[in-house]
């Protein structure tokens, strides 16, 4: 029976030759991930069940990124609980302040995921690693507990939507615009329980950072996972970061898809998702004067070095508009240092931005940039739900780093072409 790329990876992880959409399987995990919010709940479940040993201490990653550096006493207690668990179980991949990064930027950077892996994480944006040709999906804390104890996860084998990409993105249009465009097309539940499998000659022109960003937001269309084929760029990336030997899977030519969507990358423009759903994408011919109070460039979606370069290119020699707070959050320590070396930090500070240590922080309304009632923020993050970044009556507009930087300068939602030289 012909299979999708996702189905082939799943089959290889449950000892089956073939799988069909709808099959229920118990699959082996190559990596189990948790953060400072979801791990404490998983540890509770692990201990309540009387579990003692973890299945493989080298296949668990605990990343303290959401409320760190600890925002308050309760947050400090939560990371302490995870720190002690990691120490007690001998889990080496525990990442705290000083070496942590936003989890989905950190794990690929450290070579902890390779093509063909099956990764689950108690964080919805775990789907990011599909960019590396892995199956990866967000699950809950009890799933994480069970996987830490037994190395297994239950899954319903998904059908897939094929997204065929052609052409090449224009300048200042990025992976973020591709995924916001896709979510606008199919809606926040358009890929519910399904895979989003990206194919076509347009894939080759997308950078690894673009692919990571696109897969990161697969969950915002309800998808179980997003996945890209493995090509020379993927293999070069995996080699550079020292990842394990890739296992390359490809969809069968006659694999069945529930739906096929064609996107010509060359026709895409900047997209901004208006409150309060990621599907509310608008292009600039539909956007009037929307004054803003804050800009955030960062997160597991857009906190990578190419995102910072894009923002810096626009902010260089310019100033953040009076009355706008601009926050730049490099996603990992390595990215932070790279930004220093390239002179990006100087550009940001000269422009009037505040630069933070890596954290998820404001993306989920945790800390480091919370909005007051009625305030508006243009953010390169992934969700714009009610109250996501602060007061329930604040508003988040999702956009690319280019749009976020241009908006910071203009004091309203803007794209680079609207800037005066």
């Amino acid at each position, binding site marked *: 029976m012909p299979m999708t790329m996702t189905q082939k990876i799943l089959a290889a992880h449950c000892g089956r030759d073939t799988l069909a959409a709808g099959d*229920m399987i*118990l699959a082996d995990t190559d990596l189990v991930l948790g953060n400072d*919010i*979801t791990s*404490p*709940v998983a540890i*509770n*479940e692990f201990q*309540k*069940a*009387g*579990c003692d040993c973890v299945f493989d201490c080298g296949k668990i990653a605990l990343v303290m990124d*959401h*409320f760190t550096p600890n*925002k*308050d006493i*309760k*947050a400090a207690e*939560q990371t302490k609980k995870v720190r002690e668990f990691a120490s007690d179980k001998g889990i080496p991949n525990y990442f705290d302040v000083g070496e942590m990064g936003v989890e989905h930027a950190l794990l690929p950077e450290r070579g902890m995921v390779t093509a063909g892996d099956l990764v689950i*994480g*108690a*964080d*919805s944006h*775990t789907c990011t690693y599909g960019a590396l040709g892995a199956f990866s999906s*967000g*699950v*809950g*804390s*009890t*799933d994480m*507990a*069970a996987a830490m*104890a*037994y190395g*297994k996860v*239950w899954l*319903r084998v998904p059908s897939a939507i094929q997204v065929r990409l052609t052409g090449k993105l224009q300048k200042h249009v990025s992976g973020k615009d591709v995924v916001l465009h896709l979510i606008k097309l199919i809606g*926040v*539940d358009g890929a*519910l*329980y399904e895979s989003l499998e990206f194919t076509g000659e347009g894939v080759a022109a997308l950078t690894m950072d673009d692919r990571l960003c696109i897969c990161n937001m697969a*969950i915002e269309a*309800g998808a*179980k996972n997003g996945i890209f084929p493995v090509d020379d760029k993927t293999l070069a990336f995996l080699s550079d970061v020292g990842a394990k030997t890739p296992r390359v899977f490809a969809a069968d030519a006659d694999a069945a898809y529930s739906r096929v969507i064609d996107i010509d990358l060359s026709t895409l423009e900047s997209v901004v998702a208006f409150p309060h*759903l990621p599907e509310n994408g608008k292009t600039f011919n539909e956007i009037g004067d929307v004054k803003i109070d804050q800009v955030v460039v960062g997160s597991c979606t857009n906190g990578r070095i190419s995102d910072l370069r894009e923002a810096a290119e626009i902010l260089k020699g310019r100033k953040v508009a009076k009355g706008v707070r601009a926050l730049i959050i490099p996603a990992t320590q390595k990215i932070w240092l790279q930004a220093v070396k390239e002179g990006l930090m100087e550009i940001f500070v000269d422009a009037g931005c505040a630069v933070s240590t890596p954290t998820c922080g404001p993306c*989920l*309304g*945790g800390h480091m940039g919370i909005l007051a009632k009625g305030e508006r923020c243009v953010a390169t993050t992934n*969700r714009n*739900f*009610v*109250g*996501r970044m602060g007061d*329930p009556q604040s508003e988040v507009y999702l956009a690319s780093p280019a749009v976020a930087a241009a908006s910071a300068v203009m004091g309203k939602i803007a794209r680079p072409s609207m800037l005066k030289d």
Partner: protein
Amino acid sequence: MQLTGNALCYGDNVDTDVIIPARYLNTSDPKELAAHCMEDIDPNFHQKVKLGDIIAAGSNFGCGSSREHAPLAIKTAGISCVVAKSFARIFYRNAINIGLPIIVCDGNFSDGDTLTVDLTAGTLQNKTTGENYTFPPFPEFLQKIITAGGLMNAMAGGDIA
């Protein structure tokens, strides 16, 4: 198993940020989480919810974050069952894993309607309007997790393979 409770109705795309805002995720204590359940979509939820009440919602219930705090808060607040046109995938698995009954059913419900759900028979009766609905049973694989009392028990007992 039969559950009876009054309906608390919500629309489509009820996300996990409104079910339990992230500002309260610095704890994993179910009682503290329950005290802020649904706060950003229904500020009076905590006052009006009664033991056994049933949440009736539209499509894509529980979309967004993987936070298991969401079904945990709902369960601890006293909700006996969530009925929705569809569920977001992580909320769906979390509910099954922790033993919060959920049902996929496209029915007509209003706030305060008395609903009776028979999980075994796969029937839902709106006693206020007299309308009856059926819903498909869970796949056998998931039924084993539910019967075992949650995922950790099912794994320990070798119930699923």
